């Protein structure tokens, strides 16, 4: 499939490489050329520089033929708006969006977006780790 990723930070760039390794076509958008450096020289996908909220940039990056869309910029609201544009205007069947704020992640998750909330995952994993500590203390 053809995957369009917006935001080439730690998450976006690593995800791009993962998808390439899985054999998918990948196109990635970032505001700054620095993002491109993260991909490494051998990256076979396409890189488009520009603000992802602009339709011309999204189209240049191939949004019209994308099978999957990922919003992973550092702005929750930017991610939420562009992922809704991807779903409603370009009818992309698979839209995954990163949202740091657990409340917004839940709210938009209930409205049909596939939200991934790193904060929520951290809360759950750290709670589990602490509970494991507590259980070990009780046993001792």
């Amino acid at each position: 499939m053809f995957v369009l990723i917006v935001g080439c930070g730690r998450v976006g760039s690593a995800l791009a490489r993962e998808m390439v390794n899985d054999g998918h076509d990948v196109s990635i958008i970032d505001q700054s050329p620095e993002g491109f450096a993260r991909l490494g020289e051998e990256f076979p996908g396409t890189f488009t520089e520009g603000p992802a909220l602009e339709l011309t940039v999204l189209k240049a990056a191939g949004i019209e033929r994308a099978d999957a869309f990922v919003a992973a910029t550092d702005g929750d609201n930017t991610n939420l708006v562009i992922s809704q544009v991807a779903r409603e205007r370009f009818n992309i069947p698979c839209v995954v969006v990163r949202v740091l704020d657990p409340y917004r992640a839940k709210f938009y998750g209930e409205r049909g977006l596939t939200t991934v909330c790193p904060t929520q995952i951290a809360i759950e994993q750290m709670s589990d780790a602490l509970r494991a500590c507590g259980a070990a203390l009780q046993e001792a």
Partner: protein
Amino acid sequence: MYVVIAGGGKVGANLARALIRQQHEVTLIEVRNLRYALLEIEFEHQVMHGDATEIWVLENAGMARADWCIAVTGDDEDNIVISQVAREKFGIERIVARVNDPRNQPHFDLLEIAPTVSSTTAILRLIEHEVPQHGLIRLLSLQRENIEIVEAEIDEDSPAAGKLIGELDLPRSSLIISVLRDRVASVPRGSTRLEVGDEVLVITEVGQEAELARALGASVQEE
């Protein structure tokens, strides 16, 4: 009335001032520390420090009982998210959102956030209205209702010049609501004859502009 205003810049602060003067209840939400400190001196308990795109901040601001939500931050994505949360989480029906960058207007339209206010677009409309042209000039568009009011001038080449309004080949969902002649506006009838130099106001369904411009001999303005 209770009005929640997200964004305490020039637009938000002045709006708050005006509404308070009119005896309305207002909560202004500002995220920037320095700006908040400044606003707090003037607005005291009527300004709240926080990020209005966070749901709990809106909850604390009493969004649930608000009559209006005004999203006027300097960030279009923030204004979209605030409007969506206000409408869909808190059931607010009356929402006004500011568009900072007119290139983002399609996103507001797509997500059905209306009405929107954009200073760039407003200034552009004023200029279009002032500069005499023989095209259709959009004076007002009611997006949700899908109608707009446009203005056109009848020039000597217009097929409408010298004709009765009843004889015009107007699109079915268009109606001439006013004729301005020698600085006097009148509400026309079918028996009103259009003259060269008349300015007509037409209420029309969106999408009829090209046909309307042909009937009046005007050209459609590019936006």
